């Protein structure tokens, strides 16, 4: 009962917080003489990291006095909001297709992904969150499809971010030398074990922490951030997993200082702040002392034996969206549909 009350308390606090953010909070520096404002529109996950970067940016000559107006929400919703007029200078989304939507709308230059990081500003990997001590002994993708294992994953049909998980599940079979049929078969077994498909990554985290399921498909940075906030669970990095690459871009009519902001985010200090919140850096050779919440805080981002990427293993987002997530013919869509019919 005490646990229940804690959750309710947290929920009320969250909803109040949500109300405050909805109004578009100005996280600015009150002493700012310059009146330049950067509008950040992003998916929910990097909010904490962006706030930390903004503080650091304010301490630099370019960033002095710059104010920020931020809006965070589901990646696809945020992208559509910008497309239909939400003011933005800098966008930070979960998947590249949310940026290409803005390129198609003429709001972002089509050279946005020409830089050294190809438009990627933050990275993570797909991991398995498990109950403390990993009581079900879940270490590999094969363990996930054992009978009786209950999986929670956000819904790939309504959450763009959840698509990384489904791609990882499919791609690891191919990486192990399996055929496409075998990969689809694996997906069927995977979704047959899914007990909950919450609408977004955050909802899924809440459902898992509320007691649903044995294993929760999430991102390494989400797991680290939740553990930083005192949530008690472990996570497992499988031998083969998917590299999550979150794109960021400046809009064509952005305020001039936005470019300096993007450079700062991609620079050492920006990446360090992201790393402290659990994201893997996009630049090489970054020194990060200790990341609280990681499995091993002194070695927060262990090398993954076999890392799948969109570029090398799936081509591009526009191709894979069609192949895997098309509303009627997508491989993942069909696997989910089949899982419902089977029972």
């Amino acid at each position: 009962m005490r646990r229940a009350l804690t959750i309710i308390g947290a929920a009320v606090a969250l909803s109040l917080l949500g109300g405050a953010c909805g109004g578009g909070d100005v996280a600015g520096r009150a002493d700012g003489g310059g009146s330049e404002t950067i509008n950040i529109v992003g998916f929910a996950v990097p909010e904490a990291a962006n706030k930390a970067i903004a503080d650091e940016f304010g301490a630099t000559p370019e960033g002095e006095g710059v104010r920020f107006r931020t809006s965070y929400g589901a990646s696809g919703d945020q992208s559509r909001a910008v497309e239909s007029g939400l003011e933005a200078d800098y966008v930070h989304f979960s998947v590249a297709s949310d940026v290409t939507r803005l390129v198609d709308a003429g709001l972002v230059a089509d050279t946005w992904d020409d830089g050294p990081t190809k438009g990627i500003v933050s990275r993570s990997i797909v991991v398995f969150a498990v109950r403390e001590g990993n009581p079900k002994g879940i270490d590999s993708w094969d363990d996930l499809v054992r009978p009786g294992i209950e999986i929670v994953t956000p819904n790939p049909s309504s959450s763009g971010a959840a698509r990384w998980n489904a791609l990882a599940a499919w791609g690891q079979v191919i990486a192990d030398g399996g055929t496409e049929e075998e990969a689809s078969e694996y997906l069927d077994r995977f979704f047959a074990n899914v007990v909950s498909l919450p609408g977004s990554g955050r909802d899924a985290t809440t459902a898992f922490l509320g007691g649903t399921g044995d294993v929760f498909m999430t991102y390494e940075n989400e797991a680290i951030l939740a553990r930083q906030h005192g949530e008690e669970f472990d996570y497992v990095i499988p031998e083969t997993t998917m590299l999550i690459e979150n794109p960021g871009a400046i809009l064509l009519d952005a305020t001039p200082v936005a470019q300096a902001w993007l450079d700062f985010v991609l620079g050492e200090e920006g990446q360090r702040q992201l790393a402290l919140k659990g994201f893997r850096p996009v630049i090489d050779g970054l020194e990060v002392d200790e990341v609280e919440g990681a499995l091993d805080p002194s070695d927060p981002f262990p090398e993954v034996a076999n890392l799948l990427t969109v570029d090398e293993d799936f081509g591009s987002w526009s191709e894979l969206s069609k192949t895997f997530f098309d509303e009627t013919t997508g491989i993942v869509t069909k696997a989910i549909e089949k899982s419902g019919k089977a029972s």
Partner: protein
Amino acid sequence: MATATLDRGHLVRRRAAGGTRTGRLTATSGVGLGVALLWFSLLVLIPLSAVVATAAEGGWSAFWTSITAPQTAAAIRLTVGFAALVTVLNVVTGTIVAWVLVRDRFPGKRLLELLIDLPFALPTIVAGLVLLSLYGQDSPFGVDVANQRSAVFLAYLFVTLPFVVRTVQPVLEELDPEVEEAAASLGASRFTTFRRVILPSLAPAIAAGAALSFARGVSEYGSLVLLSGNLPFRTEVTSVRILGSIENDNLPGAASIATILLVISLVVLVLLDVVQRRMVRRG
């Protein structure tokens, strides 16, 4: 309704005429009507027309394909079916709760009255969290309905509870007990009194509450997503399908599902109105 007469039918007809006995509008009522229409258009008519127009974009066949896709059709059946069931249940329990609140005295009555509105005040996602922590896998009562159909039902019950209670209660308060006494003194049994005198007076209020309750159920999303698990063919409701279509940039598809829900809701509202009128006339 300051007075309650036995002649309910007459009363309702007179109210329906709306106070303009001559049928012509005075200047003030003309302005009132204008404001009402403008308000209604901005907030309801235009957005709803936009939804229907978007649905029509793909043509009839696209509309039909979106709403008959097996997974979507299952979600529509679940949503409408459960919303109807919950509404029927609410009509019974809501009337009883209203009755108890109006006619009985007991300690804690004021508190109960306050608590009934809680589902209105709570943001739905918070309601979802509360339900998850109370009736999920860590349930302190040992009641675990997580990721089952009953979770959807429970969430609907929770968010629709106040509607019938709150519509019936004021009408019941205005109901003059002398009318019931008169019926009794004329030899009517308690059941007859209830059926021929009380129920017809309450029917419009019950119907209004039922309509609200149904409409809310059909559109519910936040309170159930955490507990229901959104499993296709099992616990997935239409709102989730609509979100899925939007995520795939299939706005016509999303609007099609929304349109069919609108049509179903409209039919239910009309039906409720017809039933209510019948009951009033029979009384």
